[in-house]
């Protein structure tokens, strides 16, 4: 009981500390990434469904597994797509410079 409370209090401070400095550019991806992480409820959903024996419990548990999975995979994929744009932007520019170079040597 006190152990769990200790873990909670420490996690609060870590959570505050980790995102205390973040530029506005990253607000949306960070929100989305944090969103994917609370999808860890999938672990809980699997555990309760894994010991469920009655039809109602199994149904509710499976619904939770389904929803939590959507949260997890959707969250990580959307975040990655957003961040890919930032990175892809520079990559595209680099490719363009390169292709221009080829054109010059070609013509």
């Amino acid at each position, binding site marked *: 009981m006190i152990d769990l409370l200790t873990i909670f209090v420490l996690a609060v401070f870590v959570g505050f500390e980790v995102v205390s400095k973040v530029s*506005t550019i990253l607000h949306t991806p960070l929100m989305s990434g944090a969103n994917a992480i609370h999808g860890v409820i999938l672990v809980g959903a*699997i555990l309760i469904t894994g010991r469920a024996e009655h039809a109602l419990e199994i149904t509710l548990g499976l619904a939770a*597994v389904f*929803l939590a999975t*959507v949260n*997890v995979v959707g969250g990580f994929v959307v975040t990655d797509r957003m961040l890919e744009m*930032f990175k892809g932007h520079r990559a595209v520019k680099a490719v363009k410079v390169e292709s221009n170079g080829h054109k010059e040597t070609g013509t």
Partner: protein
Amino acid sequence: MSPTWVQLAYLAAALCFVLALKGLSTPKYARAGNLLGAAGMALAVVTAYVHGAVHNGLLILVAVAAGVAVGIPAARSVKMTAIPQMVALFNGVGGAAAALVALTEFLEVPDGSVLFQVATALTVLIGSVSFSGSVVTFLKLQEIMTTRPVLLPAGQMVGIGVAAASALLALSVVLSGSGLLLVLLALAGLALGVLFVLPVGGADVPIAISLLNAFTGLAVAASGYVLANTLLIVAGTLVGASGTILTRLMAQAMGRPLTNILFGAFKPTTAAAQTDEQRTVRSGTVEDVAILLGYAHSVLVVPGYGLAVAQGQHAARELASVLEQRGITVHYGIHPVAGRMPGHMNVLLAEADVPYEQLKELDDVNPGIGSVDVVLVVGANDVVNPGARDEPSSPIYGMPIFDVDRAKAVVFMKRSMRPGFAGVDNSLLYNPKTTMLFGDAKESLTKLLAAVKHV
């Protein structure tokens, strides 16, 4: 208690989550951070499955596969302009999952300790609030329902009443251990979530999403107490705490205290600020604007969500390069909350491949704005509204804006006179310096491009 190897795997996953959040707050490591988070999640889920799926293993796999089959295509196909509402939906299903987990555990273990009952009641309540609140934010951002604050008659009293009823129900659940009361508590939570978000309007909706995100984190942490699972406690608390900080940072970027954003609509505002005087609007043709631009020395483009929706980024970029060929300096002014979420505009422009060097922030633009010849406002509205600076009665008062009314001339490209996302009238439209160019942003830009070439 789980065996040691399970505990160790959960510890490793928790560490991944901390590093993921840390990485996501630095541009250089953001993508790696996200991937590390996903790896941690995979480790945790596989561990839970191998160790905990004693019964129903196959059914669980089917449910996971169904979730993947829905989640990945949804996340891959969503347009960049619609990302904020997608994030809201994912958050909502997470909250619902947390509430369902607690409800199911309650059915499996009907006679738990008081601590267990308290945690169950909290998870169900917060999870339900997060779910229904997220659904309402989705409806608002998708513009299925109005983006303006919705004020029910005696809304504040109803809200307080439902909140009190929820607290009473939660207490009765703890005392009685009744499953029926727990279901009623879930219903009260759903109503509370709706009532909580309805009065939040326009540009403030993303802040509500961020707060609901933190709520879901707390619900997950509370469910960790229900299941005595440290990973859920750590991960949920991390999201709850970091989400709260992020919400505050976003509110700061809007220049307003959080309480104003959430409960501001309840206060009676002086709606009489809009007088009946006939204010005139000057509307120009494409040719007028082309001449204005063609003989300018410096041009500032202020893009907004309207530009992204019309897919006009490429036309804007071409126009900018034609102007530059004529020796005109062109910059883009990017407001921190342009788009639908803080930082959303940067994502949209990155997608359109607009050169980074031309992107300027508020503090870089405003000091020298008096010497800018033409400001081209494309599909933005609220971020240039002088009311945010001059009218204390305005709902967006206090939000930092581009002081474009101090530039020499303003061209406003808009589809109609309809107010922007925040639903606030903009006095800049009636400014004698302002020329309106009505029409779809992409069409207007394309015509403008052709006209400028002929100047």
